[in-house]
């Protein structure tokens, strides 16, 4: 049975139209997002690995080499098993830096345009036989089905259709930020078609050809050599080599790299694919032996590579051959499309752009988009030319394996990229040149000789026999051995450049190390202006706006650290657009860094903390422990009940903790990165002034804020940046802010309580003192009734007035003392002697009958700048204490002496003194030597606070049994009482 060429052409064309539709509806958002981003779709899209070689060639490979065909998939399973240490680190790098191809990754790590160029060229050379293989598989399958040689125009038509599809759905967006969801969905659908078709053919072979498993087993029993032949190559030299080659190809082939990393939507999809993709490959390969045996059973005389088609065709099935043909189209088209897309991006970024950078007046986006589309066409055309020249002289598996050996030449480079910081660009270039040279010599040249392009090639069989290796193992061993050796030796022989060291640190440790320095452009607007010189005005504006949007940054941003972040984001966004090396050059040239600017510590903190937050899940061992420690210490700072603010070397704020936020009402996001001078009032003066001052401590600073008065103690310490010289002229600084407002209010309340307590104690004396004049007034009033002499009446009235004045004075003193006071009352000149006399008058009210002698020795001219009422409280407290401690006949003296810069007031008593064990806690609140009920224990504590508020000092010198001397000193020059 044969099929009509026209019907096959129409079926193939309709199938490609269906793919267009799937891609179109996905791109239009008509398929729900959860389906598009589902791990199953991602897994199926990775099925692009299974090309015509798998679909058709596996049976032929199994026929000639038994289970050797499984190695091509076991190697992939190994690569996915090692996903945590191999694929996931690459995925993180590619998504973090928007690297869309292996050439981008190499150029980024080794900081070399030449490396990117070499990778692209070698990829291109390695991929062309593979593309040719797909075209050949399609034309060959047509020949199998129609039994006639298909015209070349059909192969060309197939290529043109694929070019159109790749351009329409694979080159819609120029930046890797925007994923090609439609393309991924279409490729996933193609994988599903491949799987379903191949399983259907397997079932057809089992039930349609053999008539069921029992018959198959019976046939196998009759032909034991069928199974023995399959097992024959297991464990041989080729076996291990092909597993190794497939291991490399699993992620290094351009199409695999593109689907695995560039089109990945979520890292979790890769985790799922680590088991689901090997399962997909297992299912795909399960029917291969059955199809092979069915071909043998039927005695088909056709090429075993196409048994998949032949067995359905030979049985005269109506639709199975057509379905199988569609499966083959799926396998070939998916490979060609994705490989071409990946290669086109590499060619643009690493061949075309460095060779001819477009005029900035052109729209760069359009230029890149159309350039990529042109590349797609050229690559497919090159693949077609390769197919046309090669004709049918090489098997499918041979063509595929040649590509596999080519791509594993990138293994040393990628291992070095992930795990060897010392690897250099010179090393990777030398390794690649050596490896690809040997590859060309051992595989490409013999293939060209076999195809008739060249007549003579150096015979390798002698060398193979010497090493006892087969063709593939020999080529792999020699090429990769030389590659690795050169890579290691040349890397060790060369010194790494700084940019390479930084890129190596980023790649090897998952820690993204920021560069040092400050961007010379000072605002996003300047960024646009600078970049427009090379990118063109509209592209520069779009890229800067895009980066601002990515970082949720204001267009008016001017903070150096934020501008550094913006610069880095722009560079990364450009990686995906024009390649890492070109992007690096443009950004370095137009957004240059001033390396002299000191921002290292502040930036490092911000960047490292940001990166740690992103990559916490990948930290292991010591780095994870250090991260935990860092977080703990950061939390301590955050939870510190004192306001903490750290400044970097350039004076910008790098830490602003929670207490600082609560106290000032300014959140950390607003302050970090700004200098103290840009803080709102009054914090800019308070903190900025303190930071500039020479003193390390500043006490009791009064600040009016939001209509209230607040008090603070400030402390600061210099913090040396360990990365710079310890003698740096502008070291960092940490400022601690202690809010005293609550304490002040509490003290005011305590003072008031103490006054009330004192009033209570004074009450008896006051009552007695008032009682005397009242008695006098009563007597005078009594006598007044009998007085008739006007002069006597007048005298009586005067006496009454005198007595009432006396009462008024006493009441006034009491009122003055008891009135609530606040610490923020302004200070005014006060005559010290008057204060002392007032205090003494009050104290005497209580101690009038104690037989004590009081003496005040104070010049009337001595004046003090003070709060009179609070000062009065000091002396009332001190005189009360002295009176309580004294015995009848003792003298209590108060003297005041004005020295040059100090006023010294001394209160001396001859009382019982203070026991030794009390001396250390004299000024602590609620400490008293008096009996319960006689004192609150607040007197001395308050007196000391009031004196400190007046910038004074108090000392107590006491000897038990001999008396106590209290010495108070106030600062200040003698004041003129007038």
């Amino acid at each position, binding site marked *: 049975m044969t099929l009509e060429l026209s019907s096959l052409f129409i079926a193939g064309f309709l199938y490609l139209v269906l793919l267009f539709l799937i891609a179109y509806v996905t791109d239009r958002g008509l398929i729900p997002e959860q389906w598009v981003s589902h791990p199953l779709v991602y897994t199926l899209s990775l099925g692009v690995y299974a090309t015509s070689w798998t679909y058709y060639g596996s049976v032929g490979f199994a026929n000639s080499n038994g289970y050797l065909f499984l190695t091509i998939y076991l190697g992939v*399973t*190994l690569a996915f098993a090692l996903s945590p240490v191999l694929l996931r680190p690459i995925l993180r790098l590619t998504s973090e830096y928007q690297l869309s191809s292996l050439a981008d990754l190499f150029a980024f790590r080794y900081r070399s345009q030449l490396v990117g160029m070499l990778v692209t060229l070698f990829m291109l050379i390695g991929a062309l036989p593979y593309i040719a293989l797909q075209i050949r598989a399609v034309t060959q399958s047509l020949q199998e089905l129609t039994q006639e040689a298909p015209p070349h125009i059909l192969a060309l038509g197939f290529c043109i259709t694929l070019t159109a599809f790749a351009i329409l759905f694979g080159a819609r967006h120029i930046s890797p930020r925007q994923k090609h969801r439609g393309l991924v969905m279409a490729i996933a659908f193609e994988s599903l078609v491949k799987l379903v078709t191949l399983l259907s053919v397997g079932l057809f072979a089992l039930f349609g050809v053999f008539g069921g498993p029992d018959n198959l087993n019976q046939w196998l029993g009759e032909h034991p050599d069928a199974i023995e032949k399959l097992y024959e190559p297991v464990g041989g030299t080729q076996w291990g080599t092909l597993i190794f080659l497939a291991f490399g190809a699993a992620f290094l082939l351009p199409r695999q790299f593109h689907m695995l990393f560039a089109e990945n939507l979520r890292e979790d999809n890769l985790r799922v694919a680590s*088991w689901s993709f*090997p399962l997909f490959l297992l299912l795909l*390969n399960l029917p291969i032996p059955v199809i092979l045996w069915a071909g043998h059973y039927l005695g088909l005389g056709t090429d075993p590579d196409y048994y998949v088609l032949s067995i359905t065709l030979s049985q005269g099935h109506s639709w199975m051959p057509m379905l199988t043909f569609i499966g083959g189209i799926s396998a070939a088209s998916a490979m060609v499309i994705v490989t071409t897309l990946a290669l086109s991006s590499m060619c643009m970024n690493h061949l075309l752009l460095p060779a001819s950078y477009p005029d900035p007046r052109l729209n760069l986006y359009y230029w890149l988009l159309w350039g990529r589309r042109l590349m797609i066409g050229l690559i497919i055309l090159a693949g077609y030319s390769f197919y046309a020249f090669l004709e049918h002289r090489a098997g499918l598996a041979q063509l595929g394996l040649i590509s596999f050996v080519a791509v594993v030449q990138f293994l040393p480079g990628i291992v070095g990229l992930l795990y060897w910081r010392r690897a250099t660009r010179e090393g990777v270039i030398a390794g690649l040149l050596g490896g690809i040279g040997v590859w060309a010599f051992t595989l490409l040249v013999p293939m060209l000789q076999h195809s008739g392009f060249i007549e003579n090639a150096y015979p390798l069989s002698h060398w193979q026999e010497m090493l006892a290796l087969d063709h593939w193992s020999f080529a792999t061993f020699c090429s990769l051995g030389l590659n690795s050796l050169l890579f290691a030796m040349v890397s060790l022989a060369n010194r790494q450049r700084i940019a390479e060291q930084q890129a190596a640190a980023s790649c090897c440790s998952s820690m993204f190390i920021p560069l040092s320095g400050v961007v010379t452009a000072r605002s996003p607007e300047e960024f646009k202006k600078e970049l427009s010189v090379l990118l063109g005005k509209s592209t520069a504006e779009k890229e800067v706006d895009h980066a601002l949007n990515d970082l949720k940054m204001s267009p008016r941003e001017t903070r150096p650290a934020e501008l550094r972040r913006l610069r880095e984001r722009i560079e990364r966004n450009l990686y995906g657009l024009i390649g890492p090396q070109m992007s690096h050059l443009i950004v370095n040239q137009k957004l240059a860094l001033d390396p002299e600017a000191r921002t290292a510590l502040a930036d490092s903190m911000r960047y490292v903390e940001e990166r740690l937050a992103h990559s916490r899940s990948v930290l292991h061992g010591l780095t994870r422990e250090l991260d935990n420690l860092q977080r703990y210490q950061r939390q301590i700072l955050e939870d510190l009940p004192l306001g903490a603010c750290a400044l970097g070397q350039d004076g910008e704020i790098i830490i602003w903790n929670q207490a600082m936020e609560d106290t000032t009402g300014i959140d950390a996001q607003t302050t970090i990165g700004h200098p103290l001078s840009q803080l709102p009032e009054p914090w800019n003066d308070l903190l900025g002034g303190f930071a500039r001052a020479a003193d390390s401590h500043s006490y009791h600073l009064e600040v009016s804020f939001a209509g209230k008065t607040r008090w603070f103690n400030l402390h600061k310490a210099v913090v040396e940046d360990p990365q710079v010289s310890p003698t740096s002229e502008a070291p960092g600084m940490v400022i601690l802010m202690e809010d005293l407002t609550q304490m002040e209010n509490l003290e005011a309340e305590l003072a008031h309580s103490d006054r009330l307590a004192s009033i209570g104690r004074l009450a008896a004396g006051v009552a007695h003192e008032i009682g005397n004049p009242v008695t006098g007034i009563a007597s005078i009033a009594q006598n007044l009734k009998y007085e008739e002499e006007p002069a006597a009446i007048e005298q009586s009235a005067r006496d009454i007035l005198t007595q009432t004045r006396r009462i008024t004075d006493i009441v006034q003193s009491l009122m003055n003392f008891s009135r609530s006071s606040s610490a923020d009352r302004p200070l005014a000149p006060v005559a010290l002697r008057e204060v002392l006399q007032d205090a003494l008058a009050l104290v005497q009210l209580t101690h009038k009958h104690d037989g004590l002698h009081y003496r005040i020795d104070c010049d009337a001219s001595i004046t003090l700048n003070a709060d009179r009422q609070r000062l009065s409280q000091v002396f009332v407290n001190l005189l009360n204490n002295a009176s309580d401690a004294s015995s009848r006949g003792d003298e209590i003296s108060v003297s005041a002496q004005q020295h040059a810069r100090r006023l010294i007031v001394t209160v001396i008593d001859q009382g019982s003194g203070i026991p030794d064990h009390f001396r250390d806690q004299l000024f602590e609140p609620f400490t008293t030597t008096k009996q319960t009920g006689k004192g609150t224990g607040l007197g001395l504590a308050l007196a000391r606070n009031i004196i400190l508020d007046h910038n004074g000092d108090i000392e107590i010198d006491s000897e038990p049994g001999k008396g106590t001397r209290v010495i108070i000193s106030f600062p200040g020059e003698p004041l003129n009482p007038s």
Partner: protein
Amino acid sequence: MARTPDNDSTARSLVTGFILLLFFATPFAGLWSKGGHAWYLPYVLWLLVVVLLAVAHFRGRRKQDP
């Protein structure tokens, strides 16, 4: 050091990779390829590896879920 679910999952995956190498790329392969075993034996061994990878994935994910 506390072991994280991600570390556990990674370790399981790597051990599975080692098992795959043991089955298929060491002289151990000679044991199952000789002696007239069923034709599907390599697929069974392969499936075992896939199941181990799936277990590594699902156990890691279950531990990560709150």
